[in-house]
């Protein structure tokens, strides 16, 4: 192995990958949420459908889509490698252990929370991304906006969130995401060595506010459409 692969296959190197990809995925959440807010425009989905058409066809977005997939892949792959290593580091556990005395639940269960998010991601992509992007999994109905044909993703959103258990999956997943981010956001800065007594308290507070605000923003969408129907 050369120095580069050695660096990023060490425990610290893998944590650096985890934090860089994690923060990148956080930036994706912001973009995704801002785009989704067009759902609330109250114009029967015209703005949202134009926005989703733009997202599916713009060459810059399409390029970033590949980067985004790579972000997920590296984040998940390194999580698996590190989890395996961490489990192997303690083959015999304690008969009595009280970790709640020294650490938070979310910090000890990032893998569990991440798995919930991954399952959600697969459901979410299958329901919205696959029909919108590939026309598969049932495809989408069409809609005419100013004499041009578009896919009516808005209708799919409205229909999906009339199912109560679907709304429930979304809300539970967003709670899991919030806990994942509450630990993950500030943890990323620690892993990158970006700590300073002037800035770290702000980063920690901002991380908690960011996590709750973003996940609340996502969770309110299914709840809104369920009760608006």
């Amino acid at each position, binding site marked *: 192995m050369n120095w580069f692969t050695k660096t990023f296959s060490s425990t610290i190197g893998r944590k650096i990958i985890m934090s860089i990809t994690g923060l990148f995925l956080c930036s994706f959440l912001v973009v995704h949420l801002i785009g989704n807010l067009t759902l609330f425009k109250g114009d029967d989905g015209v703005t949202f459908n134009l926005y989703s058409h733009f997202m599916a066809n713009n060459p810059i977005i399409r390029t970033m889509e590949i980067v985004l997939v790579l972000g997920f892949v590296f984040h998940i792959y390194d999580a698996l490698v590190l989890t395996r290593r961490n489990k192997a580091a303690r083959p015999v556990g304690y008969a009595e252990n009280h*970790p709640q005395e020294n650490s938070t639940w979310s910090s*000890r269960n990032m893998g569990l929370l991440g798995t919930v998010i991954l399952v959600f991601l697969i459901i979410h992509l299958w329901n919205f991304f696959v029909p919108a992007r590939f026309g598969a999994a049932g495809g989408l109905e069409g809609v005419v906006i100013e004499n041009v044909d578009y896919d009516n993703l808005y209708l799919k959103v409205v229909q999906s969130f009339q199912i109560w258990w679907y709304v429930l999956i979304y809300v539970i997943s967003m709670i899991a995401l919030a806990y994942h981010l509450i630990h993950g956001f500030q943890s990323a800065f620690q892993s*990158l*060595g970006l700590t300073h007594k002037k800035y770290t308290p702000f980063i920690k507070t901002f991380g908690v506010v960011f996590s709750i605000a973003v996940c609340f923003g996502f969770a309110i969408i299914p709840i809104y459409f369920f009760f608006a129907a």
Partner: protein
Amino acid sequence: MAGSNPNAKPMDLTLKIWRQKDRNTAGQLVTYTLKNISPDMSFLEMLDVLNEELLVRGEEPVAFDHDCREGICGMCSLFINGRAHGPERGTTTCQLHMRHFNHGDTITIEPWRAAAFPVHKDLIVDRSAFDRIQQAGGYVSVNTGGVPDANEIPIPKTIADKAFDAATCIGCGACVAACKNASAMLFVSAKVSQLAMLPQGKVEAKTRVENMVAQMDVEGFGACSNTGACAAECPVGISLDNIAMLNREYLGAKASSENV
């Protein structure tokens, strides 16, 4: 007894202690009862009393690590009632006193659990993995010769204090024991940052951090999840800031050292 609490009543205890003959034999928790334990005893003195009773009965005494019994050598260990060095924060097992327990308590005593710390016997684990990490770079190379004058190299007070705080690590391994990943990051970070902050240590800083982290990984310790359990259980209060500094030093060294 002078200095003892006149209200403190002797206590009876049930102990569940990990007994293991040697590295290759499976172990188990064995239950013992102890009567009339003084609350003024230290935890290790309580175990001494148990061992005397076991000797009288012709049984094998419980093996446990200890040396200075002053909280400075880092030799004592023990996972007591689900906590490294017991329930008191900022305290080594030898400085833990029985007054923190109650009459009738059941106390579970286990060795540190980590693949890198194999159990030698009963409660004693082999912590030589820490020695090998230190040997990989936890030192400053100096030429022999005359003793240098004190304060010959100016070091700002704030830096000297931070380096000293890191240097207080006694290498007991409680960080590894408390970490859900059995990670040695707090130990390694204390040793790396202590020297990385000082001018004498800066000379070899890059090679040091590269070699010590490589050895840490070879020994089979887990990675850092930033749970903070290590710093919370550390008997001398080593801060998580050291881990951030280790990460910074490591990335900087990997990006700029001459070691390809």
